[in-house]
């Protein structure tokens, strides 16, 4: 199945002076001459910062109808934005299915309505969804932290992602002190993590698992979490494998202090 009812756009801003922007974004998805999506997003991004936009799709999207010219990201203002990475992915809530649809990485162009400083729009090329046997050399963790009134949902404690596959530990990475506003309330994070040993989704399902843990007692409450496996060790991946889809975080607070939350949670592998 390739029918999705939710569409999400994750972006990461380049970590350079004036890389951020408060100009709104515009996302168009065109299928056979019809703009099935023409959506504006309000954003306010600092340099190095990521965000996760999106929500329900006006109509269902059949990703099989998309072409490499279907998806374009544009900007609505003259506050130039320097994107580094862009990922568009679809969700099917009822089936709990996740799929990366289009992706660009390591971008060098700016977007701006003023033609002297950047392009108005740029294409986002499709990526293949891969399969359970696709070799995964990196993973991409996209997570955001919930914002609640009078509640300290963010954390200064490091978090750690562990992936086991085929009975082996293939990835163990601590995340702390990146150029992004790490795990702050109301903020999104984009974390690419190298696998120590290439693995497959099938290996994770057969004899493995995915664990997220917090390594401190500064309690943290995520809001959404998505994990993708990337086929290439560097550069733009041509295959992006879905691993975890938590559009609504179900595990509550996390903390090494068990009175405040769970020190670790097992993340279920999503269907493809």
């Amino acid at each position, binding site marked *: 199945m390739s029918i999705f009812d939710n569409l999400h756009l994750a972006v990461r801003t380049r970590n350079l002076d004036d890389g951020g922007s408060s100009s*709104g974004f*515009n996302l*168009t998805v*065109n*299928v*056979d*001459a*019809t*703009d099935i999506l*023409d959506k*504006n997003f309000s954003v306010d991004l600092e340099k190095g910062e990521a965000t996760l936009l999106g929500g329900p799709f006006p109509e269902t999207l059949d990703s099989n109808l998309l*072409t*490499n*010219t*279907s998806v*374009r990201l*544009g900007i*609505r*203002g003259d506050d130039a934005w320097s994107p580094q990475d862009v990922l568009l992915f679809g969700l099917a809530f009822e089936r709990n299915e996740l799929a990366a649809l289009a992706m660009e990485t390591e971008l060098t162009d700016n977007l701006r*309505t*003023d*033609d002297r400083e950047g*392009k*108005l*729009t*740029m*294409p*986002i*090329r*499709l990526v293949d969804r891969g399969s359970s046997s696709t070799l995964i050399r990196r993973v991409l963790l996209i997570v955001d932290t919930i914002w609640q009134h009078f509640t300290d949902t963010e954390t200064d404690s490091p978090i750690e992602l562990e992936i086991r596959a085929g009975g082996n530990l293939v990835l163990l990475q601590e995340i702390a002190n990146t150029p992004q506003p790490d795990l702050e309330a109301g903020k999104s994070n984009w974390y690419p993590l190298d696998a120590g040993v290439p693995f497959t989704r099938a290996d994770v399902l057969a004899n493995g698992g995915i664990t997220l843990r917090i390594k401190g007692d500064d309690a943290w409450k995520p809001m959404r979490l998505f994990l993708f496996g990337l086929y290439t060790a560097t550069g733009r991946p041509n295959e992006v494998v879905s691993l975890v889809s938590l559009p609504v975080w179900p595990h509550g607070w996390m903390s090494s202090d068990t009175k405040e939350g769970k020190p670790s949670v097992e993340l279920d592998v999503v269907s493809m």
Partner: protein
Amino acid sequence: MALVDDLILVAKTRDEEDAGTDNQHNLTVTIDGVDFFNLDFPFGGGQGDGLGRGETGYQENDFLGAIGPTPWWVATPFESNDLTQSSIRLGIRGDDAWAPHHVLLIGRVPPEWSPGRSVPLAIETDLANWLSTDPDEGHLTMRMRLVGQGNGATLIRRVLLVVYTSRQDNADTESDVQLQIAAGGSIVMTHKITHGFGRGKAYLHFLDVDTPFTRDDIESDGIDLSILGADAWLPGAIFVFGLDTESGRPNEMVTLVAIRSWGLGWLSTDDDEGKSSVPLPLSI
């Protein structure tokens, strides 16, 4: 196989309040995720005069004679067969909202020897949308659907005339101008245009035909352009396309005349100033 190495964009603004714009436009042509063409341009030719209500803008490269105001080469020629219905988008670079009425993209296909031929690539007609960078005022970009190029047997039920008057001194005219087409032994269309032609200005007209015809039916010297007054006129470029539909957006457009660099002299009923009529050569 048709390799396109440059483009002409013709756009007419709706004739309604605030429809015009001073903002630059942006055209992208994307094939398989790669922007082969991504250019910003002022329809006013960089003179700051924008595109007014009801006006038609004309943009092309100046490869063949500096007709258009802005160079418009396609850096990497593209194969027109590789275009999809999602490939071509027209956008705007500012918040002075623009109301397009008709938009036409023409490509030049170079043969082994010049002058090449011009083919319609995409068209939208009778638009009702607005373009603006302000999300409260319009879309940022709009798609332009591909149009078929028809053939000699395509039944032509309407004609689209695109005229660009030269920028030479005194090229403009207040005289009426007439386009006539003869096909299959009879006159199938005669239209008189009475609005005058401003210097450096473009015009776009959909013209009904009296009798549907085909390109193959058109006789030698069967397309005639006449001036009906003594106020001499110097065109800069003229295109005549045959459309397969009687109204609305065409599915196929047959190129009948494609003169990108007018070389047929001045037109005037005053013999001292020009010819009163010229046959327009059928496009190759």
